[in-house]
């Protein structure tokens, strides 16, 4: 970014929106730094995700997109800076509070991360069986409802090894939805899928956001994903978030770095 940017420009470019009140902000990163050994991954990351929106993070491989998601769900702790989720400082949160917070979040893993020894139905049911006192009948009803929602109703009895890549992603999404979360984190939801399946997953994510009013933070490489899914998008580059805007503005931008990054993908 140019050094003569105004403060507002910098804030906007870093994903901060002065017009939104604190109550609207569900995820807030302030000057977050994270390094693994000598390798700096996040170098002063600023980010705000507002309640009800779907925010997409793009960026080159290894730039820290998944690391950002892992900070939100408490799998990683920052070296310095502030990470707040629903107003809770994630570096000071107790185990009990973290468990409660996670029960209101869903996480869709890049490779779905289904337990191979459980059927798809049992995978989706797992959070309910382990953390609630619901009856088996009630659990089965909810699991079938979520599998129907993500359009894989026939997967209930199947093992993950019997599912295609797209079906695994959908089952992973159903598992993330089973606790009716307020916030869903998507780690490369369309990675490794063919364009047709990718498109259907993207539309499914958008549909869920519209129907269930769930806040989403999506990490992706795919332009199709940000076009369909995103309300806002930013580029994570050099450990900071840049060029935050709507997908249309983002894709039309003539910023040299964005043009360079998006060039091949736009073609």
């Amino acid at each position, binding site marked *: 970014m140019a050094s003569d940017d105004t403060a507002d420009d910098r804030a906007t470019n870093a994903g901060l929106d002065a017009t939104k009140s604190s109550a609207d902000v569900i995820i807030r990163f302030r000057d977050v730094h994270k390094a693994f050994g000598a390798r700096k991954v996040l170098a002063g990351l600023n980010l705000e995700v507002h309640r009800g929106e779907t925010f997409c993070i793009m960026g080159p491989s290894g730039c820290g997109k998944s690391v950002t998601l892992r900070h939100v769900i408490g*799998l990683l702790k920052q070296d310095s800076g502030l990470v707040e989720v629903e107003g809770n400082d994630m570096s000071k949160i107790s185990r009990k509070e973290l468990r409660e917070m996670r029960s209101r979040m869903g996480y869709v893993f890049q490779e779905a991360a289904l*337990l*191979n020894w459980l059927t798809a139905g049992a995978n989706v049911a797992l*959070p309910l069986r382990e953390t609630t006192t619901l009856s088996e009948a009630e659990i089965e009803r909810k699991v079938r409802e979520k599998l129907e929602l993500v359009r894989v109703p026939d997967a209930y009895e199947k093992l993950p090894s019997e599912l295609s890549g797209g079906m695994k992603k959908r089952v992973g999404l159903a598992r993330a939805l089973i606790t009716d979360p307020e916030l869903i984190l998507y780690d490369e939801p369309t990675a490794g899928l063919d364009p047709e399946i990718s498109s259907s997953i993207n539309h499914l994510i958008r549909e869920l956001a519209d129907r269930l009013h769930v806040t989403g933070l999506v990490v992706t490489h795919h332009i199709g994903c940000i076009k369909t899914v995103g309300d806002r998008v930013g580029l994570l580059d050099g450990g900071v978030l840049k060029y935050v805007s709507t997908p249309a503005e983002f894709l039309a931008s003539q910023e040299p770095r964005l043009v360079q990054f998006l060039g091949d993908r736009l073609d």
Partner: protein
Amino acid sequence: MISVFTAFLADIGYLLDLLVQVVLRFGAIVKRRALILEQLWQAGIKVVHVVLLVGVFIGMIVSLQTGLELARFGQQDQIGTIVAISMCREMGPFITATILAATVGSALAAEIGTMAVSEELSALEVMSIDRIALLVMPRVIALAIMCPLLTVLCDAVGIVGGGFVADSQLNVGLSLYWDSVIDALQDTNFFLELPKDVYSGLFKSFCFGAIVAVISCGAGLRATAGALGVGNATRKAVRDSIIAIIVANYFMSWLFFQA
């Protein structure tokens, strides 16, 4: 050198902490009974044939090697004593635990390691599911139960194998061999009305089963870096389990027979 020593201490500390975490979750045994039964099947029934085969040949080897030496002094009638004591005190528990480390322990490390590198463990964590209660505790209990049961089988077939060699190759009659086996296992000078050689061996087996499970699960839980990491975890699980079995064996033998 210092870093190796600190890594070793950190490893021991991690495994002791894991063992404590497992013990603290014993209250969930009833809830996890299906998983424990599944692990009993995996850890026990599926390796019975290996234990039986190895056990019978170990008994035959002990019988043959000691019998040949005893024959030089005209003491062949003591073969049964030596085979029974060595099988029950040492060979049975050690061989069974080693088989479990090589078969079940390696499989545990690979299974949990694969879960670690494919983010399944992270998925459990973000769902607030206790992975120690779900994955580790049932496996530790299953191996701690199954190792002594398999040791009984190993002892029994080893003694039978030893009798076969004594009778067929060393000209010691089966009745004489069997009498010396019974005599050798009469020592009950402890608080249990059981042969001390048997229950000391079974106690060791119980500990060996838990040791193999904790070390193997610990190696799997800490696996990183894809297939290579899973391979390293598996190798570490088997290597560390066998070392720990041997070291623990010495101290428990000392406790039972020397202290």
